């Protein structure tokens, strides 16, 4: 899901950065209203690191392997601030582990961050309606990847018509991931609801 440096055109890169900076300011503002974010930095960072580490797990798939991104789950657990968390994760990934690009951090953050925020809203709305957390986890996890893949295709196509083929390949590569992430997110959400429900945006049943 990383777009490397040198692929996208300058206007797309610029748009990516503008969208990302806007989202960061907005999500930090909206979180500030509820809690003092500055004091919460340590615990946010630990969760950011946790999701980073999770993305290093490899699941064998045919001749290659895939790694989970779990951007839907990050959204469900952290709420809108997940956007900032993933932005930080991408910075670390680009500079410390040389994965993804530096100029594309803005675009990449938007690709995974926007679906995460939607997944969060979907989850909390769905839970109020009484849908089980397993189903919701599956839907949100799969949806977050599907939307991220769709945004990826749009970004590639907006750069130029010659990227049509690359976009098709990328889209097909994401199809199995949608199912895997859906199942995984469903399992994890069910587990968290049993063991540590305060991690989820749900009211604890007494």
């Amino acid at each position, binding site marked *: 899901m990383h777009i490397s440096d040198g692929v996208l055109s*300058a206007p797309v890169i610029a748009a990516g950065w503008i969208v990302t900076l806007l989202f960061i300011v907005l999500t930090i503002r909206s979180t500030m209203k509820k809690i003092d974010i500055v004091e919460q930095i340590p615990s*946010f960072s630990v969760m950011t690191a946790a999701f980073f580490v999770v993305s290093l797990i490899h699941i064998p798939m045919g001749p290659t392997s895939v790694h989970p991104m779990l951007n839907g789950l990050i959204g469900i657990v952290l709420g809108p601030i997940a956007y900032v968390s993933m932005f930080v994760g991408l910075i670390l990934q680009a500079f410390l582990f040389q994965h993804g690009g530096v100029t594309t951090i803005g675009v990449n953050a938007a690709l995974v961050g926007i679906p995460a925020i939607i997944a969060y809203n979907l989850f909390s709305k769905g839970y109020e309606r009484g849908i089980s957390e397993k189903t919701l986890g599956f839907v949100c996890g799969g949806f977050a990847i599907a939307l991220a893949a769709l945004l990826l295709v749009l970004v590639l196509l907006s750069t130029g018509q010659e990227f049509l083929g690359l976009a098709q390949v990328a889209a097909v590569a994401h199809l199995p991931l949608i199912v*895997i992430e859906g199942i995984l997110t469903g399992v994890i959400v069910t587990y968290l609801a049993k063991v540590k429900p305060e991690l989820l945006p749900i009211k604890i049943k007494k």
Partner: protein
Amino acid sequence: MSYPGIDTYSMLDSTLHRFDPRAKLITFTILIFSFAFIAEIVVALLAVIFSLTLIFISRIPLHFVYRSLKFPALFIFTIIVVMAFTVQGMPLVEIWYISVTMEGLEIGSLIFLRAIASLILAFLMLATSRFDEIIKAMYSLKIPNIMVQMISFSYRYIFVLLEELFTMKRAMYTRGFKMKLNQYSLNVLGNMIGMLLVKSYDRGERVYRSMISRGYTGNPRLFTDFRMVMTDYLLSTVLLATALSVHFFPLIMSK
């Protein structure tokens, strides 16, 4: 346990190692952005050569460079392959319905060279300075507190949690678990990730409480003594001139 420690060789002594971290952060970032948008293949090739020269100047052992950049470079290389097969244009080689086109190969190579040049620079920027120096430089460049602290804390905890993950994985494999692509494996894996998150959350709470009780307010206290010297200015000028010239030279040449 081998960690992906990028600052393994930050203790060496070279022109790049001595470069002021603030100036390094700014000039390298500008250079990365400049290299990522080079329009011509020849200039992109020169940019890669420029980056390679910087590696030699930095005296970082080549096996370390190779180990760090092997997989990222391979990943970028797949773009050339995909582009060569999918872009419409004059076919070079034709096998049944699949054809490699000149245009695709050109665009693919341009992207590859741009990406490699930027990749090497991003690698060098962090490989030639200690991570805490970069963090200090970010503070003194007035990058928002929240951002810098989240980056430095997350960086620290990645290694702590990696250790945790390896312990859990070892425990699973000792009990005979085999990772396959099926519902059972995903269930086990999901539970493990869930456990990791719960542990991390508890750890985060502990860290939070201990930092609050030590008077943490979110404001850093810094003792820095960065000073720009002649060579810093000189090196900055050279790097910035390169960043500009890769875009201006083709314009002048074409006139």
